[in-house]
Protein backbone atom coordinates (compact mmCIF):
# COMPACT_ATOMS: atom_id res chain seq x y z
CA UNK A 1 0.00 0.00 0.00
CA UNK A 2 3.05 2.27 0.22
CA UNK A 3 3.04 3.57 -3.34
CA UNK A 4 -0.71 3.82 -3.59
CA UNK A 5 -0.98 7.55 -4.06
CA UNK A 6 0.39 7.51 -7.59
CA UNK A 7 -3.21 7.69 -8.77
CA UNK A 8 -3.84 10.90 -6.91
CA UNK A 9 -0.51 12.43 -7.85
CA UNK A 10 -1.07 11.73 -11.53
CA UNK A 11 -3.91 14.21 -11.60
CA UNK A 12 -1.98 16.94 -9.82
CA UNK A 13 1.50 16.66 -11.22
CA UNK A 14 0.70 17.71 -14.78
CA UNK A 15 0.65 21.51 -14.35
CA UNK A 16 4.30 21.44 -13.32
CA UNK A 17 5.38 20.34 -16.76
CA UNK A 18 4.10 23.62 -18.12
CA UNK A 19 6.15 25.66 -15.65
CA UNK A 20 9.51 27.16 -16.56
CA UNK A 21 11.14 25.50 -13.57
CA UNK A 22 11.31 21.75 -13.91
CA UNK A 23 10.44 20.67 -10.38
CA UNK A 24 8.97 22.58 -7.50
CA UNK A 25 11.15 22.41 -4.40
CA UNK A 26 9.88 21.81 -0.89
CA UNK A 27 12.24 21.80 2.08
CA UNK A 28 11.08 20.14 5.30
CA UNK A 29 12.87 21.02 8.53
CA UNK A 30 12.70 18.41 11.31
CA UNK A 31 12.46 14.64 10.89
CA UNK A 32 10.06 13.69 13.68
CA UNK A 33 6.44 12.57 13.42
CA UNK A 34 5.46 15.79 11.63
CA UNK A 35 8.41 16.38 9.31
CA UNK A 36 9.15 12.81 8.22
CA UNK A 37 5.46 12.26 7.49
CA UNK A 38 5.19 15.52 5.54
CA UNK A 39 8.26 14.71 3.43
CA UNK A 40 6.95 11.25 2.52
CA UNK A 41 3.41 12.36 1.75
CA UNK A 42 4.59 15.32 -0.35
CA UNK A 43 6.35 12.77 -2.57
CA UNK A 44 3.30 10.50 -2.66
CA UNK A 45 0.85 13.26 -3.43
CA UNK A 46 3.16 14.66 -6.14
CA UNK A 47 6.04 12.43 -7.30
CA UNK A 48 7.33 15.32 -9.41
CA UNK A 49 8.24 17.30 -6.28
CA UNK A 50 11.83 17.81 -5.20
CA UNK A 51 11.65 17.21 -1.44
CA UNK A 52 14.56 17.72 0.96
CA UNK A 53 14.34 16.77 4.64
CA UNK A 54 16.79 18.43 7.03
CA UNK A 55 17.24 16.47 10.26
CA UNK A 56 20.49 16.45 12.25
CA UNK A 57 20.03 12.98 13.78
CA UNK A 58 20.71 9.88 11.70
CA UNK A 59 18.71 7.91 14.26
CA UNK A 60 15.64 9.56 15.74
CA UNK A 61 14.52 8.77 19.31
CA UNK A 62 10.76 9.05 19.67
CA UNK A 63 8.96 10.28 22.79
CA UNK A 64 5.78 8.14 22.83
CA UNK A 65 6.29 5.20 25.21
CA UNK A 66 9.57 6.71 26.51
CA UNK A 67 7.90 7.01 29.94
CA UNK A 68 7.76 3.21 29.98
CA UNK A 69 11.50 3.10 29.22
CA UNK A 70 12.05 5.44 32.18
CA UNK A 71 10.02 3.08 34.38
CA UNK A 72 12.04 0.05 33.24
CA UNK A 73 9.21 -1.58 31.29
CA UNK A 74 10.55 -1.13 27.77
CA UNK A 75 13.80 -1.28 25.81
CA UNK A 76 15.31 2.04 24.77
CA UNK A 77 16.10 0.47 21.37
CA UNK A 78 12.35 0.28 20.67
CA UNK A 79 12.30 4.11 20.57
CA UNK A 80 14.91 4.45 17.81
CA UNK A 81 14.24 4.87 14.10
CA UNK A 82 16.34 5.60 11.01
CA UNK A 83 15.57 7.25 7.69
CA UNK A 84 16.18 4.53 5.07
CA UNK A 85 12.48 4.21 4.24
CA UNK A 86 12.10 7.98 3.96
CA UNK A 87 15.02 8.04 1.49
CA UNK A 88 13.54 5.11 -0.43
CA UNK A 89 10.47 7.24 -1.03
CA UNK A 90 12.56 9.71 -3.01
CA UNK A 91 13.11 12.25 -0.24
CA UNK A 92 16.60 13.76 -0.10
CA UNK A 93 17.38 13.26 3.58
CA UNK A 94 20.21 15.53 4.74
CA UNK A 95 21.55 15.02 8.26
CA UNK A 96 22.29 18.62 9.08
CA UNK A 97 20.46 21.13 11.24
CA UNK A 98 18.78 24.09 9.57
CA UNK A 99 20.53 27.15 10.96
CA UNK A 100 19.01 30.22 9.26
CA UNK A 101 16.10 30.87 6.96
CA UNK A 102 16.15 33.73 4.46
CA UNK A 103 12.45 34.30 3.90
CA UNK A 104 13.01 36.92 1.16
CA UNK A 105 15.32 34.72 -0.91
CA UNK A 106 13.40 31.58 0.14
CA UNK A 107 16.46 29.61 1.16
CA UNK A 108 17.41 27.53 4.18
CA UNK A 109 21.03 27.54 5.32
CA UNK A 110 22.10 24.29 6.98
CA UNK A 111 24.94 23.50 9.38
CA UNK A 112 26.72 21.62 6.58
CA UNK A 113 27.28 24.96 4.80
CA UNK A 114 24.80 24.23 2.03
CA UNK A 115 21.96 26.55 1.08
CA UNK A 116 18.66 24.88 0.15
CA UNK A 117 16.23 26.92 -1.98
CA UNK A 118 12.51 26.29 -1.59
CA UNK A 119 9.24 27.19 -3.23
CA UNK A 120 7.48 26.19 -0.02
CA UNK A 121 9.00 25.37 3.35
CA UNK A 122 7.51 23.05 5.97
CA UNK A 123 8.79 23.56 9.52
CA UNK A 124 8.30 20.76 11.99
CA UNK A 125 10.92 21.72 14.56
CA UNK A 126 9.18 20.36 17.65
CA UNK A 127 9.90 22.07 20.95
CA UNK A 128 12.79 23.83 22.57
CA UNK A 129 13.14 24.31 26.30
CA UNK A 130 12.84 27.86 27.59
CA UNK A 131 15.92 27.81 29.81
CA UNK A 132 15.11 31.20 31.28
CA UNK A 133 11.58 30.02 32.07
CA UNK A 134 12.25 28.54 35.52
CA UNK A 135 14.75 30.11 37.94
CA UNK A 136 17.69 27.80 38.60
CA UNK A 137 17.03 25.53 35.62
CA UNK A 138 19.55 25.65 32.78
CA UNK A 139 21.29 23.16 30.51
CA UNK A 140 23.77 22.20 33.24
CA UNK A 141 20.89 21.70 35.71
CA UNK A 142 19.26 19.26 33.28
CA UNK A 143 22.11 16.82 33.88
CA UNK A 144 21.18 16.77 37.60
CA UNK A 145 17.41 17.19 37.28
CA UNK A 146 16.47 15.62 33.94
CA UNK A 147 13.54 16.84 31.89
CA UNK A 148 13.53 13.83 29.55
CA UNK A 149 11.03 15.83 27.47
CA UNK A 150 13.08 15.18 24.34
CA UNK A 151 13.72 11.46 24.24
CA UNK A 152 17.33 10.32 24.09
CA UNK A 153 20.19 10.58 26.57
CA UNK A 154 17.84 12.37 29.01
CA UNK A 155 15.53 9.33 29.00
CA UNK A 156 18.43 7.04 29.95
CA UNK A 157 19.73 9.47 32.58
CA UNK A 158 16.39 9.54 34.37
CA UNK A 159 16.16 5.74 34.18
CA UNK A 160 19.60 5.41 35.80
CA UNK A 161 18.69 7.89 38.54
CA UNK A 162 15.53 5.96 39.42
CA UNK A 163 17.46 2.69 39.51
CA UNK A 164 20.10 4.21 41.78
CA UNK A 165 17.58 5.73 44.20
CA UNK A 166 17.36 3.84 47.51
CA UNK A 167 14.00 2.47 48.66
CA UNK A 168 12.29 5.11 50.77
CA UNK A 169 13.39 7.93 48.47
CA UNK A 170 11.23 10.72 47.11
CA UNK A 171 10.84 11.50 43.42
CA UNK A 172 9.67 15.06 42.79
CA UNK A 173 8.47 16.25 39.38
CA UNK A 174 7.46 19.79 38.46
CA UNK A 175 4.92 20.41 35.69
CA UNK A 176 4.65 23.74 33.80
CA UNK A 177 1.56 25.71 32.80
CA UNK A 178 -0.01 25.01 29.37
CA UNK A 179 0.88 24.75 26.56
CA UNK A 180 3.60 22.11 26.35
CA UNK A 181 4.36 18.93 24.38
CA UNK A 182 2.09 15.98 25.28
CA UNK A 183 -0.48 17.36 27.76
CA UNK A 184 -1.06 14.01 29.57
CA UNK A 185 2.67 13.13 29.47
CA UNK A 186 3.63 14.26 32.98
CA UNK A 187 0.78 12.26 34.52
CA UNK A 188 1.61 9.15 32.52
CA UNK A 189 5.22 9.51 33.68
CA UNK A 190 4.18 9.92 37.32
CA UNK A 191 1.95 6.82 36.97
CA UNK A 192 4.63 4.63 35.44
CA UNK A 193 7.27 5.75 37.94
CA UNK A 194 4.75 4.89 40.68
CA UNK A 195 4.32 1.48 39.05
CA UNK A 196 8.09 0.96 39.17
CA UNK A 197 8.32 2.12 42.78
CA UNK A 198 5.42 -0.10 43.87
CA UNK A 199 7.21 -3.13 42.44
CA UNK A 200 10.82 -2.37 43.39
CA UNK A 201 10.93 0.42 46.00
CA UNK A 202 7.59 0.35 47.80
CA UNK A 203 8.65 2.63 50.66
CA UNK A 204 9.30 5.44 48.18
CA UNK A 205 7.02 8.27 47.05
CA UNK A 206 6.45 10.43 44.00
CA UNK A 207 5.29 14.00 44.39
CA UNK A 208 3.96 15.96 41.40
CA UNK A 209 4.12 19.75 41.78
CA UNK A 210 1.83 21.29 39.19
CA UNK A 211 1.43 24.86 37.92
CA UNK A 212 -2.16 23.96 36.92
CA UNK A 213 -5.41 23.08 38.66
CA UNK A 214 -6.64 20.77 35.91
CA UNK A 215 -5.03 18.44 33.38
CA UNK A 216 -5.70 16.06 30.52
CA UNK A 217 -7.61 12.84 31.40
CA UNK A 218 -7.53 14.05 35.03
CA UNK A 219 -10.50 12.04 36.37
CA UNK A 220 -9.20 8.86 34.79
CA UNK A 221 -5.68 9.33 36.10
CA UNK A 222 -6.83 10.23 39.60
CA UNK A 223 -9.24 7.30 39.85
CA UNK A 224 -6.49 4.93 38.72
CA UNK A 225 -3.95 6.43 41.14
CA UNK A 226 -6.34 5.87 44.02
CA UNK A 227 -6.80 2.26 42.96
CA UNK A 228 -3.23 1.36 41.96
CA UNK A 229 -0.90 3.63 43.91
CA UNK A 230 -2.63 4.74 47.14
CA UNK A 231 -0.34 6.84 49.33
CA UNK A 232 2.55 6.55 46.91
CA UNK A 233 1.67 9.18 44.30
CA UNK A 234 0.71 12.66 45.42
CA UNK A 235 -0.40 15.44 43.06
CA UNK A 236 -0.26 19.03 44.32
CA UNK A 237 -2.35 21.48 42.29
CA UNK A 238 -1.62 25.16 41.69
CA UNK A 239 -4.25 26.10 44.31
CA UNK A 240 -2.60 23.84 46.86
CA UNK A 241 0.82 25.39 46.29
CA UNK A 242 2.08 23.20 43.46
CA UNK A 243 3.60 25.93 41.33
CA UNK A 244 7.40 25.64 41.36
CA UNK A 245 9.12 29.04 41.33
CA UNK A 246 12.77 27.96 41.55
CA UNK A 247 14.87 24.80 41.54
CA UNK A 248 18.28 24.19 43.02
CA UNK A 249 20.10 21.44 41.11
CA UNK A 250 22.91 21.16 43.71
CA UNK A 251 20.53 20.15 46.52
CA UNK A 252 17.73 18.75 44.28
CA UNK A 253 15.29 21.19 45.83
CA UNK A 254 12.03 22.52 44.37
CA UNK A 255 10.77 25.81 45.79
CA UNK A 256 7.12 26.78 45.69
CA UNK A 257 5.30 29.80 47.09
CA UNK A 258 4.24 27.52 49.97
CA UNK A 259 7.59 25.97 50.88
CA UNK A 260 10.31 23.74 49.51
CA UNK A 261 10.59 20.04 48.64
CA UNK A 262 13.84 18.08 48.69
CA UNK A 263 14.07 15.26 46.15
CA UNK A 264 16.17 12.13 45.80
CA UNK A 265 15.33 12.16 42.10
CA UNK A 266 14.23 15.53 40.72
CA UNK A 267 12.45 15.80 37.36
CA UNK A 268 11.66 19.14 35.76
CA UNK A 269 9.14 19.25 32.94
CA UNK A 270 10.26 22.68 31.81
CA UNK A 271 8.44 25.51 30.06
CA UNK A 272 8.70 25.15 26.28
CA UNK A 273 8.33 26.97 23.00
CA UNK A 274 8.57 26.14 19.29
CA UNK A 275 11.98 24.93 18.13
CA UNK A 276 14.42 27.86 17.80
CA UNK A 277 14.42 27.85 13.99
CA UNK A 278 10.77 28.98 14.09
CA UNK A 279 11.60 32.18 15.94
CA UNK A 280 14.59 32.66 13.62
CA UNK A 281 12.31 32.46 10.60
CA UNK A 282 9.89 34.94 12.15
CA UNK A 283 7.00 32.46 12.27
CA UNK A 284 6.73 32.34 16.10
CA UNK A 285 4.70 35.01 17.87
CA UNK A 286 5.28 36.46 21.34
CA UNK A 287 3.94 33.30 22.94
CA UNK A 288 6.88 31.40 21.44
CA UNK A 289 4.57 29.25 19.29
CA UNK A 290 3.52 29.58 15.65
CA UNK A 291 0.12 30.86 14.51
CA UNK A 292 -1.11 29.09 11.37
CA UNK A 293 -3.97 29.07 8.89
CA UNK A 294 -5.91 25.90 9.82
CA UNK A 295 -6.76 25.22 6.16
CA UNK A 296 -3.14 24.82 5.05
CA UNK A 297 -0.91 25.16 8.15
CA UNK A 298 0.71 28.13 6.40
CA UNK A 299 2.19 30.61 8.83
CA UNK A 300 0.05 33.65 9.66
CA UNK A 301 3.27 35.65 9.86
CA UNK A 302 5.43 34.61 6.88
CA UNK A 303 3.96 33.46 3.55
CA UNK A 304 5.39 30.31 1.96
CA UNK A 305 6.26 28.71 5.31
CA UNK A 306 4.03 26.02 6.81
CA UNK A 307 4.33 24.99 10.46
CA UNK A 308 3.12 21.62 11.79
CA UNK A 309 3.37 19.54 14.95
CA UNK A 310 4.21 20.72 18.45
CA UNK A 311 5.53 24.09 17.22
CA UNK A 312 2.18 25.15 15.71
CA UNK A 313 -0.71 26.82 17.49
CA UNK A 314 -3.27 24.27 16.33
CA UNK A 315 -6.28 25.49 18.32
CA UNK A 316 -8.01 22.62 20.05
CA UNK A 317 -5.55 20.01 18.76
CA UNK A 318 -3.05 18.94 21.42
CA UNK A 319 0.70 18.74 20.87
CA UNK A 320 0.92 15.00 20.21
CA UNK A 321 2.69 12.66 17.81
CA UNK A 322 -0.68 11.60 16.38
CA UNK A 323 -1.64 15.24 15.78
CA UNK A 324 1.72 16.04 14.14
CA UNK A 325 1.31 13.05 11.80
CA UNK A 326 -2.28 13.99 10.92
CA UNK A 327 -1.36 17.64 10.38
CA UNK A 328 1.60 16.63 8.19
CA UNK A 329 -0.66 14.74 5.78
CA UNK A 330 -3.16 17.61 5.56
CA UNK A 331 -0.32 20.11 5.14
CA UNK A 332 1.34 17.99 2.41
CA UNK A 333 -1.93 17.86 0.45
CA UNK A 334 -2.38 21.64 0.86
CA UNK A 335 1.20 22.39 -0.24
CA UNK A 336 0.71 20.24 -3.37
CA UNK A 337 -2.56 22.05 -4.14
CA UNK A 338 -1.00 25.49 -3.65
CA UNK A 339 2.05 24.67 -5.79
CA UNK A 340 -0.35 23.61 -8.52
CA UNK A 341 -2.45 26.73 -8.27
CA UNK A 342 -5.40 24.92 -6.72
CA UNK A 343 -7.50 25.87 -3.73
CA UNK A 344 -6.86 23.44 -0.85
CA UNK A 345 -9.86 21.48 0.42
CA UNK A 346 -11.21 22.19 3.88
CA UNK A 347 -9.58 19.55 6.08
CA UNK A 348 -10.87 17.46 8.95
CA UNK A 349 -8.33 16.15 11.43
CA UNK A 350 -8.37 13.46 14.09
CA UNK A 351 -6.29 13.01 17.22
CA UNK A 352 -6.07 9.94 19.41
CA UNK A 353 -3.74 9.78 22.43
CA UNK A 354 -3.21 6.77 24.61
CA UNK A 355 -1.65 7.04 28.06
CA UNK A 356 -0.54 4.22 30.30
CA UNK A 357 -1.35 4.36 34.00
CA UNK A 358 0.34 0.95 34.28
CA UNK A 359 1.71 -1.30 31.52
CA UNK A 360 -1.66 -3.06 31.27
CA UNK A 361 -3.89 -0.11 32.10
CA UNK A 362 -4.46 2.25 29.17
CA UNK A 363 -6.69 5.32 28.83
CA UNK A 364 -7.31 7.49 25.81
CA UNK A 365 -8.52 10.85 24.61
CA UNK A 366 -9.69 11.50 21.07
CA UNK A 367 -10.89 14.50 19.13
CA UNK A 368 -12.08 15.50 15.66
CA UNK A 369 -11.26 19.00 14.41
CA UNK A 370 -12.17 21.39 11.61
CA UNK A 371 -11.30 25.00 10.81
CA UNK A 372 -13.79 27.40 12.40
CA UNK A 373 -13.27 31.15 12.85
CA UNK A 374 -9.66 30.85 11.76
CA UNK A 375 -8.60 28.13 14.19
CA UNK A 376 -8.85 24.36 14.44
CA UNK A 377 -11.92 23.77 16.60
CA UNK A 378 -13.33 20.66 18.25
CA UNK A 379 -16.34 19.17 16.53
CA UNK A 380 -19.08 19.20 19.13
CA UNK A 381 -20.41 15.83 20.14
CA UNK A 382 -17.30 13.96 19.00
CA UNK A 383 -14.16 13.05 20.91
CA UNK A 384 -13.60 12.83 24.65
CA UNK A 385 -11.89 10.43 27.00
CA UNK A 386 -12.35 6.77 27.86
CA UNK A 387 -15.37 6.31 30.13
CA UNK A 388 -14.66 6.65 33.88
CA UNK A 389 -16.62 3.49 34.71
CA UNK A 390 -15.09 1.17 32.09
CA UNK A 391 -14.40 -2.41 33.15
CA UNK A 392 -10.81 -3.59 33.70
CA UNK A 393 -10.87 -5.43 30.35
CA UNK A 394 -11.27 -2.13 28.52
CA UNK A 395 -8.21 -0.67 30.27
CA UNK A 396 -6.21 -3.73 29.19
CA UNK A 397 -7.58 -3.41 25.67
CA UNK A 398 -6.65 0.28 25.47
CA UNK A 399 -3.11 -0.47 26.66
CA UNK A 400 -2.90 -2.98 23.80
CA UNK A 401 -4.37 -0.51 21.30
CA UNK A 402 -1.76 2.02 22.44
CA UNK A 403 0.99 -0.43 21.57
CA UNK A 404 -0.61 -1.18 18.20
CA UNK A 405 -0.89 2.54 17.55
CA UNK A 406 2.85 2.93 18.21
CA UNK A 407 3.70 0.10 15.81
CA UNK A 408 1.43 1.48 13.08
CA UNK A 409 2.37 5.13 13.28
CA UNK A 410 6.12 4.50 13.49
CA UNK A 411 5.78 2.21 10.45
CA UNK A 412 3.99 4.97 8.53
CA UNK A 413 6.55 7.62 9.53
CA UNK A 414 9.83 5.69 9.55
CA UNK A 415 9.12 2.18 8.23
Amino acid at each position, binding site marked *: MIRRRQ*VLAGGLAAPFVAKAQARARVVVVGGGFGGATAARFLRRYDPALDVTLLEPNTVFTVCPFSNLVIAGGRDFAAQRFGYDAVRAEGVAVVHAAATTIDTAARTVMAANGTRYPYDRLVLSPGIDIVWSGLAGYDEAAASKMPHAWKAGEQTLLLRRQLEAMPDGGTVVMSVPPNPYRCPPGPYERASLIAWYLTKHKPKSKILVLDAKDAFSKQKLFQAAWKQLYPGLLEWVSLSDGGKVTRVDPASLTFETEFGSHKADVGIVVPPQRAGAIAAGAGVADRSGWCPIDPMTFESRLVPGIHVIGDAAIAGAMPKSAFAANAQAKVCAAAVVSLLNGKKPDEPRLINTCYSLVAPEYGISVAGVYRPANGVLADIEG*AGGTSPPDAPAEQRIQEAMFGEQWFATITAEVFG
Partner: protein
Amino acid sequence: MNRPTALGLALLLVAAAPPPPGASSCSGCHGGALPLAGREAMQTTETLLAFRSGERPSTVMGRIAKGFDPSELGLIAAWWAAEK
Protein backbone atom coordinates in the same frame (compact mmCIF):
# COMPACT_ATOMS: atom_id res chain seq x y z
CA MET B 1 -28.90 11.33 1.20
CA ASN B 2 -29.41 7.64 1.82
CA ARG B 3 -26.47 5.37 2.30
CA PRO B 4 -26.23 3.51 -1.02
CA THR B 5 -26.49 6.79 -2.93
CA ALA B 6 -23.75 8.39 -0.87
CA LEU B 7 -21.59 5.37 -1.44
CA GLY B 8 -22.23 5.25 -5.18
CA LEU B 9 -21.31 8.90 -5.47
CA ALA B 10 -18.23 8.34 -3.39
CA LEU B 11 -17.03 5.48 -5.57
CA LEU B 12 -17.33 7.69 -8.64
CA LEU B 13 -15.40 10.50 -7.04
CA VAL B 14 -12.52 8.82 -5.26
CA ALA B 15 -10.66 7.17 -8.10
CA ALA B 16 -8.62 10.27 -8.97
CA ALA B 17 -9.34 12.37 -5.91
CA PRO B 18 -7.25 13.35 -2.91
CA PRO B 19 -8.32 11.84 0.41
CA PRO B 20 -11.69 13.24 1.52
CA PRO B 21 -11.74 15.27 4.76
CA GLY B 22 -10.57 13.15 7.68
CA ALA B 23 -9.42 10.13 5.68
CA SER B 24 -5.70 10.81 5.89
CA SER B 25 -5.83 10.75 9.71
CA CYS B 26 -7.00 7.10 9.81
CA SER B 27 -3.56 5.65 9.07
CA GLY B 28 -2.28 7.09 12.35
CA CYS B 29 -3.73 3.90 13.88
CA HIS B 30 -4.86 1.81 10.89
CA GLY B 31 -2.48 -0.33 8.87
CA GLY B 32 -0.51 -3.33 10.07
CA ALA B 33 -2.83 -5.34 12.32
CA LEU B 34 -5.84 -3.10 11.62
CA PRO B 35 -5.80 -2.48 7.86
CA LEU B 36 -8.30 -0.28 6.03
CA ALA B 37 -6.78 -0.20 2.55
CA GLY B 38 -8.75 -2.32 0.10
CA ARG B 39 -11.45 -3.07 2.66
CA GLU B 40 -14.86 -3.30 1.00
CA ALA B 41 -16.50 0.13 1.17
CA MET B 42 -20.00 -0.92 2.20
CA GLN B 43 -18.61 -3.05 5.00
CA THR B 44 -16.45 -0.18 6.32
CA THR B 45 -19.35 2.27 6.05
CA GLU B 46 -21.69 -0.06 7.97
CA THR B 47 -19.05 -0.52 10.67
CA LEU B 48 -18.45 3.22 10.98
CA LEU B 49 -22.19 3.93 11.16
CA ALA B 50 -22.58 1.30 13.88
CA PHE B 51 -19.70 2.89 15.83
CA ARG B 52 -21.30 6.31 15.34
CA SER B 53 -24.70 5.22 16.67
CA GLY B 54 -23.16 3.24 19.52
CA GLU B 55 -24.85 0.11 18.22
CA ARG B 56 -21.39 -1.43 17.96
CA PRO B 57 -19.35 -1.03 21.16
CA SER B 58 -15.87 0.46 20.82
CA THR B 59 -13.10 2.14 22.76
CA VAL B 60 -12.21 5.17 20.59
CA MET B 61 -14.02 4.62 17.27
CA GLY B 62 -17.40 5.77 18.57
CA ARG B 63 -15.86 9.05 19.74
CA ILE B 64 -14.20 9.56 16.35
CA ALA B 65 -17.11 8.49 14.10
CA LYS B 66 -19.36 11.06 15.80
CA GLY B 67 -17.20 13.77 14.21
CA PHE B 68 -18.54 12.88 10.75
CA ASP B 69 -21.98 12.65 9.17
CA PRO B 70 -23.00 9.45 7.34
CA SER B 71 -22.14 10.74 3.87
CA GLU B 72 -18.69 11.84 5.05
CA LEU B 73 -18.10 8.39 6.54
CA GLY B 74 -19.18 6.86 3.21
CA LEU B 75 -16.62 8.97 1.34
CA ILE B 76 -13.86 7.96 3.74
CA ALA B 77 -14.79 4.27 3.46
CA ALA B 78 -14.88 4.45 -0.34
CA TRP B 79 -11.51 6.19 -0.53
CA TRP B 80 -9.90 3.54 1.67
CA ALA B 81 -11.52 0.78 -0.41
CA ALA B 82 -9.75 2.16 -3.48
CA GLU B 83 -6.37 2.26 -1.71
CA LYS B 84 -3.88 -0.55 -2.14
